[in-house]
Every structure is written in structure tokens, then in C-alpha cells.
């Protein structure tokens, strides 16, 4: 919720600032931690474009639900002349913009992954303590969401969770993971073609960087280029180029088997969100946008197809 705050930060001089209140709804498609979200904004405020964090009320002592307040960030999530599906899915930035934005997309992701996971500012974060725990925690999380929220069990989802548990990859280097790093979740200035703010940090945690890479590569967030043949991850660049540029900028080698595991997890997670939690919230009339959640359940169809194809490559 956007509002204008008239206040005196120094106790004397009144100023007016546009602020954004992010407060937990009665039910959401993802259960998150406002404190972790706030801490991530704080640790990255000087190194990445993020909204300026001001206050957090993680236990709802002052507000009806856990919440945080940050400064309003200028920018758009898609070009003013283009259309996209809901929540920025399938946004086509166009050839000029995608060329300008792609380098920052990569470099910002590298910065997130390269940050010290032992930063004292990350007190709300758990750190996996063995090589496969990052993957195990991720599978546990999203399998629980699916099992608790799904309306109808799907054989494919059970196959996927069984396969993932039997094939957990070892994490070579723990990183901060944004967990929803994609087009649609950054604001940019159309004139200068620069990213002005990264949004939606609420799923951020310490885990395997391959999780972020895989999520960015989901078919749900990309589209074909003007040639009709080249699929662009997040509408920015082809997959091989995405991997190559990430490796070049980060100096970190991407393990393709681990990446594939997390691509399977990404599809599973997205299905759990739209067909599990989203469906449940809409069925129980729990949100202020049930009609959007119902619309989003349709996204499960191509996601299920993607999940089946990804599993077919390894089974």
C-alpha cells in the first residue's frame, strides 16, 4: 500500500515521503518472514538498487499483521507500451531494453550471491550445516506447501518429490538466494534503461545459488525472441548465454546437474504456489484478489508440462 508520510526524521524539520506498507494478508500464496525481508533490504541498501527500508514490525506489535515499511521506488516493471500477463509474467521488454538491462540483471544476481552469509545483519536467517541440507530444506518447504494446500493430488507431483529426495545435490558454496529473481520483480527507468529497485525479497534465504538461476530460467517468465525460435530466459537472453554470462561475471562454475535439479524444484514450487496455496486461498475467499489467484491456477498447465519434460531428461 502506497502512502505519504509527513514526519520529522531529525525531530525538527517536517518532510513528506512516499512510503510503501507491506503487510501480511490474512492468507498469502507464500508464507514469508517480514524480518528476513527487511534484513535483506538493509544489507543490500548500499550495494544494490532496493527500496530504502525504514521500519519493520515482525510480530505485529503495532500493526494488525507482520509488516514492514520502505520508501517508494520510482520505475516500472514493464514498458508502458507493452502488454503482459498478470504479475509481469511473459513481459516482453523489446530488443533495445533487454540489451540494456541484461548486464545489470546478471551483475545484481552475482552481487546477491556473493554477499557474506555470515553478515551480522542476517540474524533472522538459518544456515544449512551440511552439504545437502540446502536442497533438502527447499524440497521439505515446497512439498509441505503442496501436501497441505492441494485440492487434488497429482501423480506427477508425487513422482517429482520422490525423485528430488533421492537426488539431492550437494551445495558447493552457500549463498543468499533471492528466490523470486525475475523480470516482473524489478523496477526500471524507461528513459535511462537502468534498474531502479529489486522487489519481493520475502522468500529470500541462505541456500544454493542454482536455485535462483533455475527460477530465472523458468519457461513461465520468458518468451520467444522476434525470430520465433530463440527462447529468452526472463525475456532477456537465451539460456546458454545466461549461464555463460553469469559464470563470467561471478567467476563461479555452474554445475549443470545441480541446475537441473533446481529447475525441477522450480517447476514443482511454482505449481505448489499456483495450484496449491493460491487455489486454497481463493476457494476459502481469503485474499483481496481471489479472482487473480483463480486466473493463476491456469499457469499450472504449462508448468506441469515443463516439470514432466525436465524429469524425462533424467529418468
Amino acid at each position: 500500500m502506497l502512502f505519504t508520510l509527513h514526519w520529522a526524521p531529525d525531530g525538527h524539520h517536517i518532510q513528506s515521503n512516499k512510503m510503501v506498507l507491506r503487510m501480511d494478508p490474512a492468507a498469502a500464496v507464500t508464507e514469508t518472514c517480514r524480518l528476513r525481508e527487511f534484513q535483506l533490504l538493509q544489507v543490500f541498501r548500499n550495494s544494490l538498487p532496493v527500496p530504502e527500508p525504514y521500519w519493520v514490525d515482525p510480530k505485529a506489535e503495532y500493526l494488525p499483521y507482520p509488516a514492514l515499511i520502505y520508501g517508494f521506488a520510482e520505475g516500472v516493471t514493464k514498458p508502458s507500451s507493452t502488454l503482459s500477463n498478470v504479475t509481469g509474467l511473459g513481459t516482453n521488454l523489446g530488443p533495445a531494453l533487454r540489451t540494456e538491462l541484461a548486464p545489470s540483471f546478471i551483475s545484481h544476481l552475482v552481487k546477491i550471491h556473493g554477499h557474506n552469509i555470515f553478515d551480522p545483519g542476517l540474524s533472522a536467517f538459518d544456515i544449512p550445516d551440511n552439504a545437502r541440507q540446502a536442497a533438502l530444506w527447499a524440497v521439505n518447504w515446497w512439498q509441505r506447501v503442496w501436501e497441505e494446500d492441494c485440492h487434488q493430488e497429482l501423480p506427477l507431483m508425487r513422482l517429482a518429490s520422490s525423485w528430488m529426495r533421492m537426488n539431492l545435490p550437494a551445495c558447493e558454496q552457500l549463498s543468499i538466494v533471492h528466490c523470486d529473481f525475475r523480470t516482473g520483480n524489478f523496477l526500471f527507468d524507461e528513459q535511462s534503461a537502468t534498474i531502479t529497485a529489486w522487489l519481493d525479497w520475502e522468500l529470500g534465504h541462505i541456500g544454493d545459488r542454482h536455485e535462483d538461476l533455475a527460477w530465472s530460467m523458468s519457461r513461465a517468465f520468458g518468451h520467444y525472441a522476434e525470430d520465433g525460435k530463440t527462447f529468452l530466459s526472463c525475456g532477456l537472453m537465451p539460456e546458454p548465454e545466461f549461464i555463460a554470462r553469469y559464470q563470467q561475471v561471478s567467476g563461479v562454475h555452474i554445475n549443470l546437474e545441480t541446475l537441473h535439479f533446481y529447475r525441477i524444484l522450480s517447476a514443482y514450487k511454482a505449481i505448489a504456489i499456483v495450484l496449491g496455496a493460491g487455489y486454497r486461498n481463493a476457494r476459502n475467499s481469503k485474499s483481496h484478489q481471489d479472482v487473480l489467484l483463480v486466473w493463476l491456477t491456469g499457469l499450472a498447465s504449462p508448468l506441469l508440462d515443463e516439470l514432466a519434460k525436465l524429469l524425462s531428461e533424467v529418468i
Partner: protein
Amino acid sequence: MEIRVALAIKAILKALDEVVLPAVSPDNKLAQEQGHLIVALLGLIAQRDAMSYEYDVDELRRLIGLASDLQSLADDPVLNANIAAAEEVLLNARISPARLIQTSCQLSSVLADQIEVLVNTGTELACTAAKTVLAASQEQALRERSWLIQQGWESDPGQVPDIEKLIKFSKLAQAGSQL
């Protein structure tokens, strides 16, 4: 699993009531009136949708009853043939859509449990079971993608066949569609 009518209408009504109609200018009388009619009509559909199939079955049963009563008075071959055809349709209409959906849900759940057991054996059998599930799942996903093609999720919609080609109709339904 397509977007079910009951769920969609429930969400639509809530959006209309809480977001859309309050934003319509009170001075726009036509929009206000039609907005409220939309809500009322959707409410009616939502209330009756679950029973609409049983309603139609009941109507057919009553018509057959009436026809049978008249048959005793006028032994007409056209009437007789139509009564026979209608009775056959009624016989096949005993299972309700709700029961159909419930049965699919139940079977899906049992299948999921069985797949987990098989996959966890780690044997050759597990691999065969997994491949079987994957093949069936891709077929089902294609069907659902076709059903919802209008939503615009597909990067290449031309690759998705029309739903009519993907759903296996029963002979009876095919006969009905030709009338």
C-alpha cells in the same frame, strides 16, 4: 484440472462486489444497474450450478413419464422410438459430474501413493513406473494447456492442438453432438 466454474464465479463475485462496482460512478445509472444484474445473475448460476445436471436428468425423467402416459393412449411409432432413445440416455446419465470428479480425485490420490512406493524401491520397476507416469502426465498437461489456451500462457500457442482433438468422447456424446 481446469478452472472450475464454481470457484471462478465465487472469485468473480467477490471482485465485482468489493473492487469493481464500488469504483463505478453512482451517476452512471446504466453501469450500476447492469453491474448489479451481473452480480445477481452470477449469484444465481453459482447457487444452482452444482445441481444443474441433476435438474436436467430430472426433467428428462419427467418427460419420459409424461410420454409413457401418452403412449398408452396413442400407440405412435415415432413416440415409441423416442421414448426408447430417451430411456437409454437416462440410463447412462445416472452418474453425476460431481461423482465423476470425486472419483477422479480419489483415484489420483491412490495413484500418487502407489507411485511413491514404486519409485522408492529404486528398481527397474521404479524406472518403468516413472516413465509411465511421465508419459501420461505430459498427455494430460497438453489437454489442460489446450483447455486454457485463451489465457495466453503459451509461448507458442500454435503447438497446442484444439481440445476437441484431445478429449476422448464417448460414442453417446458424439451422437448427441450431431443432433
